[in-house]
């Protein structure tokens, strides 16, 4: 943690909202995207991300100076998302009992891909591939999903992941290996989609 951050943490501890906002500003997108991976829906992701920041603000006094804001926020966000999922599951159960008429479970996502130089059919294809990968990641067991998101979506190092999840480097390595294998196996059924894109999945 650098000196500026340290000062901001100190001010945030004294209830300075503005200081806290400065501290977390660089991590807005990261936290929101992490939440989106878990919840797959814009509104839920936004709510969970904000909840994570609120929890961080309330707990800023417990932030240890030898850790980093980044790993600390990741940990809080993951916990917040898992809590949200648990809560939603309970709510869903109630909804099913009360009214099973709507049909949609709100889990469908429409991906917004920023404009690029790709031709329309290529964009569609890329959109489809991204959706398939996101869906398959979200279907993985909790541990696999988390480690994949941290490493392959957020580009965190093995060391950072070990700190966030409080596991050893060896566990990071083996868990990630297992997660990638499962994802690869689950993606094999979409072989054709990837093949048109010059894939190596055979």
């Amino acid at each position, binding site marked *: 943690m650098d000196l500026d951050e340290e000062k901001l943490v100190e001010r945030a501890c004294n*209830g300075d*909202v503005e200081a*806290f*906002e400065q501290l977390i500003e660089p991590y*807005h*997108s990261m936290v*929101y*995207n992490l939440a*989106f991976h878990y919840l797959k829906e*814009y509104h839920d*992701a*936004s709510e969970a*991300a*904000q909840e994570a*920041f*609120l929890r961080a*603000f*309330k707990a800023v006094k417990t932030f240890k100076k030898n850790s980093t804001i980044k790993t600390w926020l990741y940990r809080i966000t993951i916990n917040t998302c898992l809590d949200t999922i648990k809560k939603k599951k309970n709510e869903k159960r109630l909804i099913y009992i009360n009214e099973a008429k709507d049909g949609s479970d709100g889990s469908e996502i429409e*991906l*917004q*891909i*920023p404009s690029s130089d790709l031709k329309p059919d290529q964009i569609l294809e890329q959109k489809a*591939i*991204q959706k398939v*990968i*996101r869906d398959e*990641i979200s279907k993985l067991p909790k541990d696999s999903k988390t480690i*994949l998101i941290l*490493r*392959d*979506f957020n*580009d965190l190092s*093995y060391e950072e992941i070990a700190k966030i999840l409080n596991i050893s480097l060896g566990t990071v*390595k*083996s868990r*990630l*290996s297992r997660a*990638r*294998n499962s*994802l*690869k196996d689950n*993606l094999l059924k979409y072989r054709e989609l*990837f093949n048109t894109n010059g*894939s*190596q*999945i*055979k």
Partner: protein
Amino acid sequence: MYCENYREMISPYIDGMLTENERAILEKHVLDCDECKNELEEIKFVTEHCHQLEKMPLPVDFKEQLHSKLVNIEGIRHNSRNSS
């Protein structure tokens, strides 16, 4: 070593987390073993695609909403501090 042992090296290999020696061992094996070579290519392919996933843009009102929530809880805390 069995293929199974080499397979465990694939994921850290992609991340550059193997030692020089381990790298060389795996690279030599996939020259002779088509199955492990295939496995390496597939996992590399999937991993690269994960890295390419687009970041979702932050909702436009995200900062504003968060700000009012933060001010709100700080206000509550402040009041309870004053009254106690």
